[in-house]
Each structure stands twice: as C-alpha cells, then as structure tokens.
C-alpha cells in the first residue's frame, strides 16, 4: 500500500516525491516538502533493495560467502570482496603470501577507478552534461574487459579475492594489458578535468557541508576529505601493502559539491600511480596459502571476533564477524559508508536548496543504494 500525497493546504506549499522511478535518482526515494522553489525539509525513504544480507551470510560457509560478498554493492564488487576476505583471514590466523597481497591491491585499485568513473558519469548527467555520461561509460568498459580476462566475470568476479589469497594467478599477457588500459585512463582523467561552465555553475557553493557537522553525522571517505579533514584508512591503519606504496590523499577545504567532484578526479590519478608501482614490485610466488590450495568445501572457523576496516571508493567499510567454532559465522555485521551518507547527511544538506540543485547535491555524495539497504 503506497501512501498518497497530502493535498496542498494553502498557497505555495506542497509535497514532492523525488522517487525511485526517476531518471536521476537510482533506487532510492526522498520525500521533499517544498515552499515555492525552496526545499523546507527532506525525509529519506530507504528499503527498496533490502535482502537481509547479514543473516544470509550466517547460513553459508566462507567460500560461499566470498561469492556472495561481491553483491553487497554492485558498483564496487572487488573492494567488498577484499573486506570479507580480510575478516576471515584474521579470524583464522592465515598468513597471506606476498604475491597475493600485491594482486589484491591491484584489483582493488582498478575497481576504485571504475567506481569513480561511474561517479563522474552520473554526476555529469545530473548537472546536464549528457555527453560526459556516455563517454564515461564507454571508458569504463576497458576496465571491465580487464576484469573478464583476469577473474572471469565482467561485473561480478565470483569471489576472486577469497580467504587465503586470490583464486588464480594473472595470465601471461595481463601485465601488458593493464599498462595499456592505464594509458586510456589518463585520457579519461583529462576529460574529467575539462572546465565545463554549466557543471561549474551548478555545483560551486551548492550543498556545503561544514567539518563539525560532518563529524557529528558520521561521514567518512571523499565526502569528509572535501570538508577539510585529512583522513584515509589506508594511511591510518595500513592493510595489505599500502604502507610500502607512495601515494597522496587529496583534500579540499570548501565542502561544496564542486570540491567533492574534484577529489574524485584526483583520486583516480592517485590510483593509477598505485597500480603502476604495484605492478613493478610484483614478486614471484604462490597466490594462495598452501593449506587452502586444494579448495576445501567447508572448514571450521576458530572461535573469536574481529573488526576489519577498509577504505572503499565511497568511504570507510567495516565488517564485524563473530564465530563460535562452527563452519558458518555466528554473526556478521556489515558497516557501509552509504548508510550514513544517504539518510542523515542527505536530510541535513537538502534543507534550503532550490529544486534545481537537488540532483547536484544528491549525486555529489556518491551513493550506492544497495550498500545502504543490504
């Protein structure tokens, strides 16, 4: 039963539904109360994609969970794969071989570039630059072809990063192809740095998020860096081999939609740098821990609990896993960055903007509805 909108009580006030079946909104709706042209208040409407992920993982063994964990957020599957694999590795006390760590970092950074390209595409569509949308999705296909060569799937890599390492080694021509794709990515970055007067006018000074509000609302990732704070989980508590690689973390002070957009383009540049360094330093050796080389269908997870934090393209992702000695986990809690970006932050930022600015604010937060609903 869908609730009907209220009739307008008087004059210029009315209810407006920026809803799920909208070309500019994704699977998520926001109920706005508008007076004339200015938004008075907003109320988020989540739940269109709720599957109950956390309890689904309790019925499945770690190998099955590795395949399920790519579907946590469709737009960056390899990054979520990595978070889950690290949680199981730490619970079981597995030591991952060096070559596997470098491969994990390469795949995670390629997935971050691919996710930022989507961000650029939908942000330009939301502010009126339709050509940018079509070109961005054209460039993204180069990375998807790379994923198909290495892991077997264009969008979902079928649990490539699994507990113990990665499933199979790079094929022989992978290194040359990755370097060619990185050249194309430089062209994409040049497209992103173009000065487009319409996009600039629609995103400068729109949706300003101050630092004090950001910390109180629980914001992480590029949105927090756009408001002036220099934090990144890869520098605070480095995981895999990030402490041996040399990269910068872009920060802007202004906090508006344009600042967040600029950070997205800068992060793509830094990711290209990381992949090049990791490819040069790639050592030889095994890609999976020796006791798990012959795949076992189920193994017992020792008792304990862990909390693992990673930096995915949208912010800070974390998994809290509790095990009581069986072959399936007892409780898995998934913390995604979009849960906080889409409900408290959006309701806070949409107060007082004009209707025409709503897409620019909405897409500059880089949301993924699947991550919020789980």
């Amino acid at each position, binding site marked *: 039963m869908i609730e009907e909108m209220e009739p307008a009580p008087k004059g210029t006030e009315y209810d407006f539904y920026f809803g799920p079946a909208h*070309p500019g909104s994704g699977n998520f709706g926001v109920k706005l109360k508008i007076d004339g042209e200015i938004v008075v208040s907003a109320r988020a409407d989540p739940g*269109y994609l709720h599957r109950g992920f956390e309890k689904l993982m309790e019925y499945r063994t770690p190998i099955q969970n590795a395949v399920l964990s790519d579907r946590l957020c469709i737009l960056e599957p390899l990054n979520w794969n990595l978070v889950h694999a690290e949680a199981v590795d730490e619970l079981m006390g597995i030591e991952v071989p060096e070559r596997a760590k470098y491969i994990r970092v390469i795949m995670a950074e390629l997935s971050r570039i691919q996710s930022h390209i989507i961000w650029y595409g939908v942000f330009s569509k939301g502010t009126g630059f339709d050509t940018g949308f079509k070109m961005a999705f054209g460039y993204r296909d180069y990375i998807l072809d790379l994923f198909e060569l290495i892991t077997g799937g264009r969008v979902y890599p079928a649990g490539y990063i699994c507990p113990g390492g990665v499933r199979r080694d790079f094929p022989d021509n992978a290194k040359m192809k990755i370097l060619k794709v990185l050249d194309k990515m430089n062209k994409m970055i040049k497209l992103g740095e173009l000065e487009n007067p319409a996009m600039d006018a629609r995103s400068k000074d729109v949706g300003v998020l101050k630092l004090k509000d950001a910390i109180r609302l629980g914001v992480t990732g590029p949105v927090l860096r756009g408001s002036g704070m220099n934090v990144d989980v890869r520098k605070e508590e480095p995981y895999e081999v990030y402490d041996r690689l040399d990269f910068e973390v872009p920060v802007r002070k202004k906090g508006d939609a344009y600042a967040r957009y600029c950070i997205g383009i800068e992060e793509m540049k830094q990711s290209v740098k990381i992949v090049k360094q990791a490819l040069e330093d790639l050592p030889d050796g095994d890609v999976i821990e020796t006791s798990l080389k012959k795949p076992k269908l189920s193994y017992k997870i020792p008792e304990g609990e862990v909390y693992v934090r990673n930096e995915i393209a949208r912010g800070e992702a974390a998994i809290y896993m509790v095990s009581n000695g069986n072959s399936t986990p007892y409780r898995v809690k998934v913390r995604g960055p979009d849960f906080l970006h889409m409900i408290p932050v959006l309701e806070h930022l949409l107060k007082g903007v004009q209707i025409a600015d709503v897409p620019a604010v909405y897409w500059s937060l880089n949301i993924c509805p699947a991550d919020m609903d789980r």
Partner: protein
Amino acid sequence: MVKRSEKAKTMRKLIKAIWIFNWFNSCGFAELVPLVGSRWDMERFGMIIVGTPRHADVLFIAGYQTHKSIERAKRIYEQMAEPRVVIALGSCTMTGGMYWDSYNTIKKLDDYLPVTMYIPGCPPRPEAVFEACEKIFEHVKELE
C-alpha cells in the same frame, strides 16, 4: 497473399523501435547502463530511454525485486499503454537466484506481472539483451 489478423496488422505498425522505461533496479544498473554508453550504443537500433511510462513500450525488470519495489513496478506497468512488453533479466526473477532464502525478495516474477521473455544470467551480457530485443521483432513478424 497471407491474410493477417487485425492484431497482427496493428502490432506491425506500432512496434518499429523500442522505447524503454528507466527502472534500472539493483543489478540492472551495472549491466544495462553500459548499453547507453558509447561502446554498446543502443541508439543505433532505435532504442532510447524515456522518463515516463506513458511513452514506453518495454519495461525491463532487471534483477531481484523486494515486496516494496514490486508494488511500484506494478503501478508503473498499469500506466503503460498497449502494446506493452515486460522483459525480466537475471536469474533472480526466475527462481529466486542467489537470495532464494531471503524473507524480503520475491521468488518468481511471473506471479506478479505477465512476463514476455526471460533472459538468464547473473548478470546477463549486453549482447544477450540485444538478442532479446531482436526476438521481439521476429515475434511480431511471425504473428498472424
């Protein structure tokens, strides 16, 4: 001379190019939006994305649906003008798929909306979507 029924004549006049309504749900976003991009350009076949169901011929249900979103999909379906087609993408619409034991997803789309064509895969490739649209044209040609 083959005598065609009235229905076949009207269908041949109306279905020449397919206009799709933009209801990219869940997994469909990652595999249907590249169709709009510059590599698998779908405008060369006459297919474009429209923003309102009144202009659309085809409703793509791409991926799993929950109880909340199937109500909205039904309401959209009722607003489309005839002739209209529903294409279901992915294995979650056929049997429940990867989330078969979830309490909130629906298991068989056929119980809620009349589906014309299923495209299997998790997710299906863009070439499969083009082949499905081609089958619609063939089906209309063979109608008698």
